[in-house]
C-alpha cells in the first residue's frame, strides 16, 4: 500500500528526498512529464485529454511531502543531543518517544527524569523542547559527533499499521494521505492541464507551494490535506472541527485562505450527486498550501479538502480508509467539472 510506504518514509521539511523518490516512482508512468525544482517540489504534469480540452485552463493539485520533525542543534558535553522542532510541535507530546536521526537512521530516545525522582511541583511542569534531550547511547561528545551532525533531521520512529476495523495509524499522515490521494488522482485523464505538485516545506510556511505556483500560474488550485480533528466527546455542543468517518472535509476558510465559493460549491454538489459523504472543516484554524497559492502573481482561486486526521503533528496519527478513498472519489468526480466554472 502506497500510503504505508509514504508514512514510513522520512521527510522533514527541507529534506523531502526519500519521500520524493517514492512518489517519482509512483507517478512516472501516469504523467507526461515531471521535474524537481529548487526548493525540492516534485511537479508532475498531465496534459489535457479529450476532444473538448480547454487549452488555457491549468489546475494545480498540491499535497505536501514534508512532515514535522526535529533538527539536531548541539552535542552536549556528555553525548546527549539537543534539538529544535521543525514545524509546529506541541512539546508535551515528545516525552518518552523514539526517533531516527539523519541519513543513517541513528535510533534515539527522548528520555525524561523518572517519576520517582520528581518533586510534586515538577510533575505539574510542562517541559519545553529546550529542556529535553535525545539519548543515542553515545559515550561522549566526540562519540556523538561521530554519529550525528549538527543540522541532521530526526523523525519519529513510528510504524504504519491498521487499527480498528477501518482505520490506519502512522506518522506523517499529514500530509502523506494527501500525497497518496494525489497519486491516485493522477492516474485519470482530464480535459485540462493538470499539475500534480508534491510540495516541500509546507510545515515551515507553505514555501514550496508558493514557488511552484509561481512557475505554473494555475487557473485554480486544490490543496489535498490531512486536517485537524477534534471529535472526542465534549461536555458542550460545540464544533468537532472534523469527524473521522464523516467523509472528506472541505475547508471554507482557515487562517490562510478564504476558499473560492465556486470551488466549495463544486465539491459539495459533486458529493451530493454521487452520494459521497462529505463534511465541512468546522473551524477557521491552521493554514495550508492553498493559502500561499492563492496569493501568487495575479491570484489563484483555491480550496482545500482533507482527510480528517486525529493527533496530527504528533508521533502518531490516525485516519479512516473510507475517508481517504472518498477524498479520491470526490476529486475524480469533481475535477472534470472545473472546466465548466
Amino acid at each position, binding site marked *: 500500500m502506497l500510503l504505508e510506504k509514504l508514512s514510513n518514509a522520512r521527510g522533514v*521539511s*527541507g*529534506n523531502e528526498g526519500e519521500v520524493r523518490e517514492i512518489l*517519482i516512482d509512483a507517478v*512516472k*508512468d501516469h*504523467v*507526461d*512529464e*515531471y*521535474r*524537481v*525544482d*529548487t*526548493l525540492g*517540489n516534485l511537479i508532475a504534469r498531465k496534459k489535457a485529454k479529450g476532444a473538448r480540452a480547454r487549452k488555457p485552463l491549468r489546475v494545480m493539485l498540491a499535497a505536501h511531502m514534508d512532515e514535522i520533525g*526535529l*533538527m*539536531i*542543534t*548541539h552535542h552536549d558535553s556528555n553525548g546527549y543531543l*539537543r*534539538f*529544535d*522542532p*521543525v*514545524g509546529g510541535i506541541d512539546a508535551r507530546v515528545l516525552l518518552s518517544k523514539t526517533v531516527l536521526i539523519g541519513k543513517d537512521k541513528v535510533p534515539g530516545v527522548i528520555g525524561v527524569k523518572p517519576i520517582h525522582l520528581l518533586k510534586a511541583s515538577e510533575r505539574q511542569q510542562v517541559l519545553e523542547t529546550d529542556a529535553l534531550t535525545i539519548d543515542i547511547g553515545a559515550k561522549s561528545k566526540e562519540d556523538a559527533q561521530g554519529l550525528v*551532525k*549538527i*543540522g541532521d533531521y530526526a523523525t519519529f520512529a513510528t510504524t504504519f499499521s491498521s487499527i480498528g476495523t477501518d482505520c490506519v495509524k502512522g506518522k506523517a499522515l499529514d500530509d502523506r494521505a494527501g500525497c497518496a490521494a494525489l497519486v491516485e488522482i493522477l492516474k485519470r485523464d482530464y480535459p485540462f492541464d493538470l499539475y500534480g505538485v508534491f510540495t516541500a*516545506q509546507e510545515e*515551515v*510556511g507553505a*514555501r514550496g507551494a*508558493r*514557488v*511552484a505556483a*509561481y*512557475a505554473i500560474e494555475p487557473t485554480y488550485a486544490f490543496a489535498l490535506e490531512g486536517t485537524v480533528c477534534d471529535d472526542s466527546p465534549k461536555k458542550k455542543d460545540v464544533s468537532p472541527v472534523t469527524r473521522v468517518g464523516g467523509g472528506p472535509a472541505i475547508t471554507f476558510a482557515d487562517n490562510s485562505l478564504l476558499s473560492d465559493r465556486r470551488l466549495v460549491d463544486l465539491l459539495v454538489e459533486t458529493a451530493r450527486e454521487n452520494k459521497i459523504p462529505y463534511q465541512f472543516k468546522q473551524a477557521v484554524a491552521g493554514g495550508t498550501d492553498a493559502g500561499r497559492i492563492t496569493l501568487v502573481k495575479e491570484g489563484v482561486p483555491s480550496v482545500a479538502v482533507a482527510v480528517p486526521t486525529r493527533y496530527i503533528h504528533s508521533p502518531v496519527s490516525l485516519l479512516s480508509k473510507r475517508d481517504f478513498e472518498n477524498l479520491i472519489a470526490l476529486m475524480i468526480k469533481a475535477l472534470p467539472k472545473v472546466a465548466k466554472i
Partner: protein
Amino acid sequence: MSAKDFLKKLSEAHGVSGYEHAIREMVIAEFKPYADEISVTPMGSVIALKRGAGPSMRSTLSRAEGLRTGKVLIEGHMDEIGLMVTEIEQGFLRFTQVGGFDVRVLPSQEVIVHGKQKLRGIIGARPPHVLTADEREKVIPMSDLWIDVGLPEARVRELVQVGDWITYARDVIDLKNNLVAGKSLDDRAAVVSVVEALKSLATMKHTWDVYAVANVQEEVGLKGAQTSAFRINPDVAIALDVSHAEQPNTPEIGTVPLGGGMGIAIGPNIHPLVYEKLTEVAKANEIAFKVLAEAGATGTDAWAMQVVREGIPTGLIDIPLRYMHTSVETISITDVERIGRLLALFCASLDDKFIKQLRGETEEATRKSAKETRKNAKKK
C-alpha cells in the same frame, strides 16, 4: 578604505529602515571602484554588478549545452533600528520603535532626532527618587519614556513633526583584540564584508556575474531583500547577517565565538548544495566556521530571498556579534574581513558545473520522464 574605517563610517552614519539615503550614498561610493554597473531599486537598495568571465567553454559549445553566465547575489542590509516621534507633548517627544528594541536599554540613551535639523536628545524617565518601591521594580514601558531635546515647546514644534525618525548618538569605540563596539553594526558590518569581497574579487578570476547588494528595510520585514532578489533573479543568493556571539548569560547552543570565524547556517531555509559549497570552500581555505542549525525561519534576508519567483538556492553566513540591537553592539574586525574573503572565494569557485549541479536533479528527471514517455508510447 580599510574595513575598519568603512565600518566606523557606516556605524556613525544614520539611517533607520525606510530612511537609508545617507548610508546609500556611502555604499555607492565604496562599491563604485569595483562595479561594472550600479543601480538603485524602487525601494532604495543598492545593486552593484561585477561581471564575470562567463562560461569557461567555447561559446558555441556552451550555447549548445544551454549554458549561460551564472548570477550570484551577496547581500547585507544597511538599515538600522530606531525610533519615531508619535506625539509632541509640552515640548517632550513621545515615540515608538522602528524595528525591535529591548526597552530596558533605552533610559538615558543619547539620540539624534532627525527633524528639520538634527537635534541632540536624551531619552528621559522619571527619577527613581520620586517612584514608589513597586514602580522601581518594574521595567519602564516605552509609553513612560520621552525624548528631551532641551528646547522650548514652540521651538520644538517648529523643528520636529510627528513621524520624524530618531537614532542612537554613538561613536564607535575600539576594544582590545581588534574588536569594535557601536550602534547599527547589525548589519552594516555585513555591508563591509560585501565590500571586502568585491575588493578580493578584483584580484581573482570569476566566471559568474556577482551582484553585491546593500538592502533596505530588513528590520521591518525583509523587504529590501525580497524586492532586490526579484529584480536580479539570481542562481544563488547568499545573505550575510549577524548572529549572537558567545557572551555572558547566553547558551553555547546556536552561538559563535567572537573573533572565531562565523556561523554557516543549515536547515530548510538553506539549499543543501549551497551549504556544501560554502563549507567546502571554507575548509579548503582553512577559514574557521561553526555550523548553525536553523529549524525554520531564520529571520534574515535569506528567508525572504529563498521563495522569490520560482525559488532561489539560498545560503546564510552569520557574523558573530554581542549585545544585538543595543547601542554597544560588539564585533570583530577580523571576522568581518574573513567573511569577505570567504565570500570572494565562494563566488570565484562557482563554475559551469555548479549551475548544472543546481539544475541537475531537474534536468535529469525531465530527461528520464521524456524517455519513459516515449518508451510507454512505443509499448502501446
